[in-house]
């Protein structure tokens, strides 16, 4: 697998009820190297949260595989291993949640919350050792260890998020999926938590899958970015390259819609007509064709696959090679 720690291959997730089949995630593939941060962006209904949960096996994917290289060097298909192996490997892939209020059980003390993963995986570990590890982790994420006997309601949103981070890290994982981990926080607290995540990444050699709708944050923190639309990955590229020059029309429209925190640098917006289609009833051909200003006949009948481009990125567009799209020009 080379130096890839995580290879996500053709993941599908369908939610079916009697009459309706909602395709939340359709054929998503990408790879991450150790120590990288992969950003996944998209608007509501694009399936990014579902994708994240499938990867950690919080919910079960309908199809697909996730090749993961564990600490001991073995490669596992995380989605298709037996229960016993999963119990062993699961420790190394963890998640941080969006809502600081519902992600912590209000009826447990913070110490218990951080120790719970230890209790579940190392039942023979003496309490003293568990306490020490928990306190250590708390200090690492910037929490005062003497506050650990308090209940979650005693902490602010930013602090609760730190507790969530401590809980995710106590098992010493290699991969962490951050599901909108800073979206519910105030701007100044966001900055604190983002800095913390970056520091921890360096210190513990973590690989992040950073799911967010906030493009500014994603640009700041990610090495590579994947853009999702209606369950499909439409473009996957290195951050700098994508933001400077996107190759998929949706990426271009998305980037142009983000308001820049600088009045002198407002981008010309690419208008998108129409609305996001219903995921239970997606259009034929390319999912984006109805709103795309470069749509041709082929787009209405044939869905494009992710194709590799010369600069290393992948794009799902029939006309990717011929279009000349605009992005952000960087300050000099």
């Amino acid at each position, binding site marked *: 697998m080379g130096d890839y720690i995580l290879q996500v291959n053709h993941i599908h997730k369908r939610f079916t009820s009697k009459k309706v089949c909602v395709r939340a995630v359709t054929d998503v593939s990408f790879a991450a190297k150790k120590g990288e941060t992969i950003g996944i962006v998209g608007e509501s209904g694009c399936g990014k949260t579902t994708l994240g949960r499938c990867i950690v096996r919080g919910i079960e994917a309908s199809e697909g595989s996730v090749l993961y290289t564990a600490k001991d060097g073995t490669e596992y298909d995380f989605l298709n291993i037996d229960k016993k192996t999963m119990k062993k490997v699961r420790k190394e892939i963890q998640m941080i949640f969006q809502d600081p209020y519902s992600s912590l059980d209000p009826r447990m003390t913070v110490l218990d919350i951080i120790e719970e993963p230890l209790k579940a995986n190392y039942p023979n570990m003496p309490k003293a050792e568990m306490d020490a590890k928990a306190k250590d982790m708390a200090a690492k994420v910037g929490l005062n260890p003497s506050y650990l006997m308090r209940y979650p309601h005693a902490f602010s949103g930013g602090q609760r998020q730190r507790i969530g981070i401590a*809980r995710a890290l106590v098992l010493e994982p290699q991969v962490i999926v951050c599901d909108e981990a800073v979206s519910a926080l105030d701007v100044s607290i966001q900055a604190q938590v983002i800095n913390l995540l970056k520091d921890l990444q360096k210190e513990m050699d973590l690989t992040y899958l950073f799911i967010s709708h906030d493009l500014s944050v994603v640009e700041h923190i990610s090495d590579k970015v994947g853009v999702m639309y209606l369950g499909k990955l439409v473009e996957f590229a290195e951050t700098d390259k994508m933001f400077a020059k996107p190759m998929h029309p949706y990426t271009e429209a998305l980037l142009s819609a983000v308001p820049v925190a600088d009045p002198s640098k407002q981008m010309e917006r690419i208008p998108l007509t129409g609305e996001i289609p219903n995921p239970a009833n997606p259009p034929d051909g390319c999912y984006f064709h109805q709103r795309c200003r470069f749509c041709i006949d082929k787009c209405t009948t044939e869905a494009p696959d992710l194709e590799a481009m010369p600069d290393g990125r992948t794009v799902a567009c029939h006309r990717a090679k011929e279009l000349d799209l605009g992005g952000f020009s960087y300050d000099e």
Partner: protein
Amino acid sequence: MALFKKKEKNNEDYYLASQWTLMGRKLVKHRLARISMFILGFLYISALFANFIAPYNLTAYDSKYMNLQPTKVHMFHEGNFEGPFVYGIDVERDAKTKQKIYVENDEVYKVQFFVKGSEYKLLGLFKTDRHLFGVEEGGKIFLFGADSMGRDLFSRMFLGSQISLTIPFVGASISFILGLLLGGISGYFGGMVDNVIQRVIEVLSSLPTIPLWMALSAAIPANISVVKVYLYITIILSFISWTGLARVVRGKFISLRNEDFVMAAKLAGVTDFKIILKHLVPGFLGYLIVNVTLEIPSMIIGETSMSFLGLGIRSPATSWGVLLEETKTITSIATYPWRLIPLFAVILTVLAFNFLGDGLRDAADPYK
């Protein structure tokens, strides 16, 4: 939001308070709930010591004093302070209506405390014959009047409270267990099991409660022991009410199942069973307690109604419902209005449980 987070006087206290502590604190602040707790505490303690408080036992009667009006307790006799006492009662006939009327005479019977009276077992354990109060030999103290057999209503009310207050409690406990079990199974397994249980619940809930209770109690055989009757009645009462609780449990189960912290536990490797025990059950325990508390008033009314119609508790055991049976006719209420006193006891208890339940419900969600 920083602005709206409350700051308690002793911060550390608040930070270290678990869910139950916070709930308890909030409950105590709720005025009506506080008052209700005192009232209910008083009622249950007096039910516990009913045999002691009541001057007469269940079987005592005196046909000489049928339908006697409530005895007046006097303090002064011919101007002198004598301490509490009652006058003797003479029976006379009203000239016009030929009806018996009771008139106080001159004989003074002092009220005594801790008197010897009929024997009973205190708390079912100790044999004793002491009562809280009574009168000297020859006098009668009927504080709430007498019924048509000359039995003291005051005593019967307190003795009856033992049944009227405990049956709903026992019934509610059975409902609690059934509701927790069946609702939990329904919510956890889902699928066919859930379907079947929910349909059963729907059928049971669609039956009108009190008529069903009455129909079932009419089926209780006539000549069985008091204890067995008691048992049958509690089972009948909890027969339907577990359904409401099971639904609450199932609903809470399903909603809590989707909370992020449950998924976090799953990702940490915690087993399903432990998740249920540690994360889900404490989550809905509060709601369950609230629901059970609010079920009790309807059970009180249920038992009272059944007994009122002669279908529940049988003689010589008594409950408030049995006492109210005598108030079925207008003439009885018009002539002997004191017979309605047990009604106020029922109302008071039902209101107290309702307010307590309200207070519990308000206190149950200290986090939101």
